[in-house]
């Protein structure tokens, strides 16, 4: 069984490496492109809203597919964040409350 666990099939390794290459291209592509084009006022305006926009685009569908337990825990995370500015506290609150709320609701 040890031999099985450590086996590396050439085809599998090839697919995995191809996945790694395209993933690395996506991770670096944005920076690479921006480093190559001239920064204009418009581009700066677009870049300045990007972090918030990405965060909202991730959260929207994620929370929409959730239910009351996720929404309640989400409200608590934001409240804790505003009060304490501690990401650790907000994270723990979110995870604990989502588990509790799922049990209750």
């Amino acid at each position, binding site marked *: 069984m040890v031999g099985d666990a450590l086996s590396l*099939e050439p085809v599998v390794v090839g697919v995995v490496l191809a*996945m790694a290459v395209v993933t690395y291209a996506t991770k670096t*592509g944005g920076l690479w492109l921006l480093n190559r084009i001239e920064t204009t006022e418009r581009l700066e305006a677009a*870049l300045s809203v990007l972090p918030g926009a990405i965060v909202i685009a991730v959260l929207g569908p994620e929370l929409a597919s959730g239910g009351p337990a996720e929404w309640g825990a*989400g409200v608590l995370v934001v409240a804790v964040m505003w009060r304490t500015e501690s990401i650790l506290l*907000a*994270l723990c609150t979110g995870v604990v409350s989502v*588990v509790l709320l799922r049990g209750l609701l």
Partner: protein
Amino acid sequence: METDSETDSSDGDAVGNGDAADDRGAEPVTFGREGIREGLVTCVPVAVGVGGYGVAFGVLADQVGLSVAEAVLMSAVVVAGASQIVAVELWADPIPIAAIVITTFAINLRYSLMGAALQPWFKRLSAAKAYGSLFFMADENWALTMRDFRAGNRRGAFLLGSGIAVWIFWVGSTVVGVLAGGAIGEPARYGFDFVLAAVFLALAAELWEDRSSLVPWLASLGTALVAAELFPGRWYILLGGFAAALAEVIRRGR
């Protein structure tokens, strides 16, 4: 390697809200041990949640017949959770190579936008440091890094440090998942599925500036919700980001 000789007291007590003003500042972005350590320590609790997903990935990989070595190799070199889980769900005999590689690319395209958002700081780093760090970028540590930069810190190695934490837990939990099989149970049981949402909500609470955020955020939210219904994978993140950028350019143009 330079060290972070300067403490961050100079920009720690932020006068403004750490927005565009400090992006253009002449102050360099540092890249040293302090940034790596700070990123690593900050990210460990988040990385535990990532580990919950690594176990789930390992279980799936085992079910489709990947060996421990193959699953670990994938986690170690791809380092992109959602796309790996989808890839093993597509796995069959013979392996649908084109479908897997193209799907991986499509799901991960959102990282280009995340990398672009780091550019105001990363353009000040050498190519080796910037592109080396980006290998370790995942959703969670991108969010933590963005938060650190926006708070006025200029620790360029934060992404690398937090990424190392994600990588260790991701690869380690993959091993656990493959070996333990289905014995561990769903990540949702422990609330791990909520970690990403919690981190992003915390970041949203900090990124909100004033009413000027409203237009781009609504543009992003609306577009993402519609796109999530219409398109498979994670296209909605990319489209939401583009919609917000476009809305902001139009808003400022008036």
